[in-house]
């Protein structure tokens, strides 16, 4: 089930809100767990088993790790076992065929592919369980004694299938006792509706432009650039819209989930971009891979190895394909180059820094979206005149005109301009009063408009479902 759907908005959501708030405090986590499993089973009934196995191993091994905290060998064994089960399930479901294909290509053998369907959200909840057991082993959190509470944490539907990656330590206290307030509920509703609008009104519409581009027989350099820019805005609004909805839902149920995006397109370097894009994934790799490997407090060759390992894994996490691995390594190269060569110089010219970052980020997303490395090279080449495409085509001009307003809204919405303007207005008493009156009306209008788009059916997959 996706948030931006009629069944979620008008069947599941009212049901879970009613059941949750009617339930006594001691049953609220159980209620969340039950509804989360229904939510998950809605899309993939059989994959609930994978999730239950993950929860069960995390729960039992978490308890064992804590029990043998004073016995390092046993603690390490149980931690490694938990990590092996989590990562093993992920590798089995997500990467088995990738390894077989590459093994076949290298050896000339023809081992049959397993064709395992990818359980939705497995990359996200695997990382959550990993963080839990590792944090228990490190002693930074206590093991959860109540399986329902741990189950509610892992399976919690708002962030189950596309993040943000909420670590157990982020919400451990809230799982055992959280407050619900009008202020928090209103903030949650606001955040949810804004996320829904980002997804339905911007991301989905640009998704249709991208689909038209991919189906066209009327390609041109202009169309390539239009696609590349549209895709960058599309993926940002799609993913950050989902994160907004997740964070908003979390607030309605009394949780404070970590932020996942902070206007990444205003970054002035790739380094800054990754501090603002998919923050919870970046910080996860930093805390559980990069720093344990020594981070940057090691000799330069080792530091380079650390960087490339982390970005190889970051790319690979996004998908079992060389395009994703290259995408991760592409950023590794940029980050190393920035840190060792030109970051200081880049910071001296804001315009150049922005152009540089947007250009490389846009190109990186063309690679990200390409079905193969060859196609990526062809697409990126075509953006710069290779391949013999005409400079413009009728369809490209038409779609540029047709999607101009959405692209402009998307581009402006990717910056804090609107947020800052509203902040300025609300500094004055009259402005604040006006905004307070307008906000509920605007949110209701957005909700109605989004409902119209969903009722009429349109392009609506969440990109990050496949991860």
């Amino acid at each position, binding site marked *: 089930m996706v948030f931006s759907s009629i069944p979620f908005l008008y069947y599941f959501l*009212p049901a879970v809100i009613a059941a949750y708030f009617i339930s006594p405090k001691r049953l609220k986590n159980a209620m969340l767990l039950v509804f989360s499993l229904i939510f998950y089973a809605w899309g993939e009934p059989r994959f609930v088993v994978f999730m239950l196995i993950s929860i069960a191993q995390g729960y039992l091994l978490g308890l064992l790790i804590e029990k043998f905290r004073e016995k390092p060998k046993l603690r390490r064994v149980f931690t490694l076992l938990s990590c092996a089960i989590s990562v093993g399930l992920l590798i089995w479901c997500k990467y088995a065929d990738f390894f077989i294909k590459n093994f076949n290509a290298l050896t000339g053998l023809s081992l049959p592919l397993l064709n395992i369907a990818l359980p939705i959200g497995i990359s996200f909840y695997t990382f959550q369980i990993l963080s839990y057991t590792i944090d228990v082993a490190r002693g930074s959190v206590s093991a959860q004694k109540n399986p329902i509470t741990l189950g509610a944490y892992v399976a919690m539907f708002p962030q189950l299938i596309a993040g943000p990656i909420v670590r157990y330590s982020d919400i451990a206290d809230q799982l055992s006792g959280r407050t619900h307030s009008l202020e928090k509920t209103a903030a949650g509703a606001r955040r949810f509706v804004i996320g829904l609008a980002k997804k339905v009104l911007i991301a989905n519409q640009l998704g249709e432009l991208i689909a038209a581009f991919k189906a066209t027989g*009327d390609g041109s350099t202009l169309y390539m650039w239009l696609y590349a820019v549209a895709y960058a805005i599309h993926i940002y609004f799609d993913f950050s819209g989902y994160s907004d909805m997740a964070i908003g839902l979390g607030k309605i149920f009394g949780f404070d989930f970590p932020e996942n995006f902070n206007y990444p397109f205003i970054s002035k370097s790739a380094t800054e971009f990754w501090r603002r894009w998919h923050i919870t994934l970046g910080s996860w790799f930093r805390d559980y891979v990069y720093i344990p490997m020594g981070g940057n407090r090691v000799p330069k060759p080792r530091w380079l190895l650390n960087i490339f390992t982390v970005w190889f894994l970051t790319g690979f996490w996004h998908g079992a394909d060389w395009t994703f691995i290259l995408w991760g390594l592409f950023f590794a190269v940029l980050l190393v180059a920035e840190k060792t060569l030109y970051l200081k110089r880049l910071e001296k010219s804001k315009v150049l820094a922005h152009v540089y970052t947007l250009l490389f980020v846009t190109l990186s997303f063309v690679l990200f979206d390409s079905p193969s490395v060859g196609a990526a090279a062809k697409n990126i080449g075509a953006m710069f005149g290779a391949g013999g495409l005409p400079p413009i085509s*009728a*369809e490209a001009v038409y779609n540029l005109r047709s999607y101009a307003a959405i692209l402009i809204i998307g581009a402006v919405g990717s910056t804090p301009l609107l947020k800052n303007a509203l902040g300025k207005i609300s500094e004055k008493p009259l402005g604040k009063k006006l905004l307070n009156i307008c906000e*509920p009306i605007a949110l209701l209008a957005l*909700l109605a*408009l989004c409902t*119209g*788009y969903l*009722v009429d059916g349109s392009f609506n997959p969440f990109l990050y479902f496949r991860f």
Partner: protein
Amino acid sequence: MNDKLKNIAVTALCGLWIFAAAIWGLVSSDAEISLSERRKLAQFPEISAEALSSGGFMSGFEKYAADQFPLRDGFRRLKAIGEFYIFRQLDSNGIYLKNGYASKLEYPLKEETVKNAAEKFRRIYDLYLSGSGGKVYLSVIPDKNFFLAEAGGYPSIDFERLVGLLRENTEFAEYIDIFPTLEIEDYYRTDTHWRQEKIVDTAKALAEGMGAKLDEEYEEMTLEKPFYGVYYGQSALPLSGEKMIYLDSPIFDGVSVYNLEEDSYGGVYDLERANGADPYELFLSGPRSLMVIENPNAETDRELVIFRDSFGSSIAPLFVEAYKKITLIDIRYLPTMSIKYFADFEGADALFLYSTSVLNNSETLQ
């Protein structure tokens, strides 16, 4: 309004909206069809262990929930308004508005399907027409995009190329050009079709091309109910209804129309269908595989077979005065190989009369 009041308003309005729509959806009865979209609406899916485990129930429910949503047409209209007037998109679901006319984007030119149409026509010629003793004609009906698209900055197919391709591959047929007889005012604003009362000159040009003459004066009859064409429902825009006029004449009094599918006889106009979901079915009962119009009072013994799409329904009656028998065959619904069981081509002239939109999407021709 202070922050607390604002928070109350946000929570109450959003909560009320979601819960009210949910309850409304639960208590309201399900509709069978959408008149505006001219389609059946999804019904509550069957619940079974298999449907639940395979996900069939879930996907069925998602369609059902969207199709049966309260005030569905109103929400669809809201979306169309959002696309056209808020986000300034040039089309909605592929439909655009130009000079008050709604039209569906038809782009690009699919040369292969045009050639496919020509192949189908050739097959019919080889099977039934080559030795029939009659003449074979071909004519192409431009869709509204011919008049609107290029001038309005919308992607447009090369109509000249389309006709050229078709003619190159149908050398057995004599081409009759009706493009000069048509203008945008000859079409409905909200529908794909042309208006019967505006195509008398087109019918005359076609008849002249086939060596016949049309002189009949017709009386314009207007349906009471406003006509909302197919684009009205598809676009969901607040377009106004328009007059539907059909042409009447005493010559139709003695004419009988045989409907193969229903094995029944009727008149040229089906007034009952004029009140149905698609009032354009007024003309010869709409899309039918095979219809035979017989005019015992015709001054000639000439016979005509028209291979046609839905545009043919409204123009065919205008040929009645010049032909004793007109057979209309729609190979979208009647496979070419089955035609021999129902139609006789001996001595009859044949006309392939197709719109550009069908020729550019000829996969439907059998």
